């Protein structure tokens, strides 16, 4: 009876870890009992400050390092197994290519190892818009070009799961925007993307779900929407008693919270125009009316215990 449910889970999740732990020989506990699940077809953001354990976790998922304890299944296989790796494309930390070879020749080496036809090399170069510079030596590439070649290398196998570890590292704002667009494009075809980053804006814009890791522990895993909480509207109006009556009449008492002279309304920010119109019609002066939404940054700092601006 349990077999169908296992199959069902494998159909839903492409990465599943249970109590995944890595303690290095020096005694450093880099990853501490992480239970993580990435669903098929989603863009999963793996968030955490530098040194939180993101890269160590990803390295375990592709079999580069062995966990001290715990288990993981990636694309239905044990991490590092040839069958599993055949379905995974990965860019872990900086892209590793031979500096004396051209971008195209480097990809041909990877294609040979991945058992992929050489025709695919030109396809992925085109996808990352590197075709015109593919003949140049990798050692002469800019950081952005190196990152894009790394993504191209990860795409060679046309993988079910793409693991990208801080792909925007070292890129200028334009390069970051291009990388975001590239990842969005890659995710279009129903491919699963596991993206590690410490750039909250990037994750907020791209990801469906996020996992936040801090001090080696996965502190939360949820959709971006759940993490950000309910949206709302903040109103400041005079006279405030009459404003309270009007707002309570509009949304009900449970949706109106009065705090420090402000009304926090649990409602869609799209209602702002109607709120303003009703208050004005009742002769109430509105001095402030704005949508309320927690930023991922606020949530992140709250979860990781890091100080904002530090």
């Amino acid at each position: 009876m349990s077999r169908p449910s296992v199959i069902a889970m494998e159909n839903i999740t492409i990465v599943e870890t249970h109590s995944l732990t890595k303690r290095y020989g020096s005694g450093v506990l880099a990853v501490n009992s992480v239970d993580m699940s990435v669903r098929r077809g989603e863009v999963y953001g793996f968030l955490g400050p530098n040194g939180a354990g993101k890269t160590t976790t990803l390295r375990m998922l592709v079999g580069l390092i062995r966990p001290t304890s715990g288990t993981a299944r990636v694309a239905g296989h044990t991490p590092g197994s040839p069958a599993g790796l055949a379905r995974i494309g990965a860019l872990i930390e900086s892209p590793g290519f031979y500096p004396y070879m051209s971008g195209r020749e480097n990809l041909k080496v990877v294609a040979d190892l991945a058992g992929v036809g050489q025709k695919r090399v030109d396809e992925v170069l085109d996808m990352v818009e590197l075709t015109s510079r593919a003949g140049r030596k990798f050692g002469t590439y800019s950081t952005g070009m190196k990152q894009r070649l790394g993504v191209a290398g990860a795409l060679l196998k046309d993988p079910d799961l793409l693991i990208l570890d801080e792909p925007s590292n070292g890129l200028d704002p334009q390069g970051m925007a291009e990388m975001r667009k590239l990842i969005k494009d890659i995710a279009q075809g129903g491919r699963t993307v596991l993206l590690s980053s410490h750039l909250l804006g990037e994750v907020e814009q791209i990801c469906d779900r996020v996992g936040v890791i801090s001090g080696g522990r996965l502190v939360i895993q949820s959709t971006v929407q759940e993490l950000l909480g309910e949206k709302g509207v903040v109103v400041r109006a005079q006279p405030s008693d009459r404003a309270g009556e009007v707002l309570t009449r509009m949304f009900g008492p449970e949706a109106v919270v009065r705090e420090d002279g402000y009304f926090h309304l649990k409602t869609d920010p799209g209602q702002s125009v109607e709120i303003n119109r009703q208050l004005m019609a009742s002769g109430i002066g509105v001095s402030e009316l704005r949508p309320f939404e927690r930023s991922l940054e606020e949530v992140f700092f709250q979860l990781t215990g890091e100080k904002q601006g530090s």
Partner: protein
Amino acid sequence: MIATIKAEWRKTRFRPAFFVTSGLLALLAVFAYGTNWYLATHPGATQRDAVSILTLYPDQFVNNVMLAGFPIGAAMAIVLGALYSGSEYSWGTLKTLLTQRSGRLTTWIGRVAVFEIWMAILTVILFAVGAASSVVVASFQSHAIAWPALLDVGKGMAAIWLILSVSGALGMALGTLFKNSAAALGLGLVYLFALQIIAVRFIDSINNGAYKWIGDLFDGQNTNALLHTFTSPVFGPAAPASIGAERAVTVLIIYLAAFLVVAAGLLRQRDVT
């Protein structure tokens, strides 16, 4: 496996280190021939012993070329081996290779296979340049060109290939152990040019050579013994070797296997960080 070998070949065929080493080895052979030719035709020009011109003709080229195999050829092989395996860590390319579908051992076997092909290429270059140089000398000296037996050429090439392979494998093992080229290269060369020589001399000096058998287990001793089997009367009297050719070959093969197995074990077991 074929895919791994193909990938390894693709990346090494463009690698400057292999071309530079091939060129250096060829130059070394030409330089050795040129110097000896000068010494042979200008007796008394230097303090060194006179060189017989007979040693420079094509029928002796195998014996002559063997001298380039150790320690210079071996040193070059150590450098190549250390660069070949160590730079995979410093460039971060190892993680790229290991996240493809080949397993770690398959990747390693493919790498060793291609390295051995390169050692064979270096051997062929050394012999080709040696043969060509001997023909040049014979032509200028108006000496008839006669070649050694094909079997002797084959044995000589196999011996040089084995010597280069053992040293290259040491370099590869050290590169894997240290996860970089510089330390591997440094230690490998220090071992070749100093450590083992000092160790062998020290061991041989204990109790009037009572433990010489231990010194005879070092790869350098066996390499020298193997090289000295390639000689002829025109090179002058040779000191009797304490190690026979067959034993030397056996010991060197054991060293080769040991270096490669240890490196494979390190690659398979250790984390790639």
